[in-house]
């Protein structure tokens, strides 16, 4: 996936390969089924998942790899079938970030968005081990430079 320019969205030259289809929407946003995933090196590791519904609304998301140690959501057979995943490596996992007022950020581990990297079809799944996962997992702030 190509890195999107910071202002790419304003010009709405959305590359097809960044368009994510969520046929069931996100929980609470069942009617919005198309999103675009944008990244910017300056915003690393945060990505921006924007609704393609005519608004500018969206979600800050992260890929949990390297940020949430030992994160292992168990995806149900039904969800694996729904997404057409043949191998765990076929899946892109994104977790929704909630930004607090005072600069802290938490990440929702209970409802990951799982995307088939080949079809770009995704779903916000509830893993079968959801009871062991945090709804508001704090992202560790950078230590203040000495």
């Amino acid at each position, binding site marked *: 996936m190509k890195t999107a320019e910071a202002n790419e969205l304003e010009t709405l030259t959305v590359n097809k390969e960044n368009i994510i289809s969520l046929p069931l929407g996100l929980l609470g946003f069942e009617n919005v089924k198309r999103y675009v995933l944008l990244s910017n*090196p300056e915003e690393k590791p945060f990505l*921006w998942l924007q609704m393609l519904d005519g608004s500018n609304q969206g979600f800050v998301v992260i890929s949990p790899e390297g940020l949430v140690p030992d994160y292992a959501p168990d995806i149900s057979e039904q969800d694996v079938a729904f997404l057409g995943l043949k191998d765990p490596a076929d899946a892109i996992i994104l977790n929704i970030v909630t930004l607090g007022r005072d600069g802290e950020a938490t990440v929702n581990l209970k409802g990951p968005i799982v995307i088939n990297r080949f079809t770009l079809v995704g779903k916000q799944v509830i893993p079968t081990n959801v009871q062991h996962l945090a709804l508001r997992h704090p992202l560790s702030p950078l230590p203040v430079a000495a």
Partner: protein
Amino acid sequence: MLVLSRKVNENIVIDGRIIVKVVRTEGNFVKLGIEAPPNVPVHRQEIYDEIQRNNQSALAPSRPAAGHLPGIKGGAGESTPTSPAS
């Protein structure tokens, strides 16, 4: 609300395509089996509510400027290798 009595192993059919079966009862617990088409999501309500509320509070009206994103471990400026979705 429609209230129906069912025995163990009896079913309810919803809309001709969703089947809810009473599998087992144990004191206060009722085990249900649900057969629904893949495009009909089925969730425990309390978990659905929790994630739905979290999604609502995470919704941003527009893309935050890079400067408004927190500095976190593994983020920009840190050399820890991470592999965001690509």
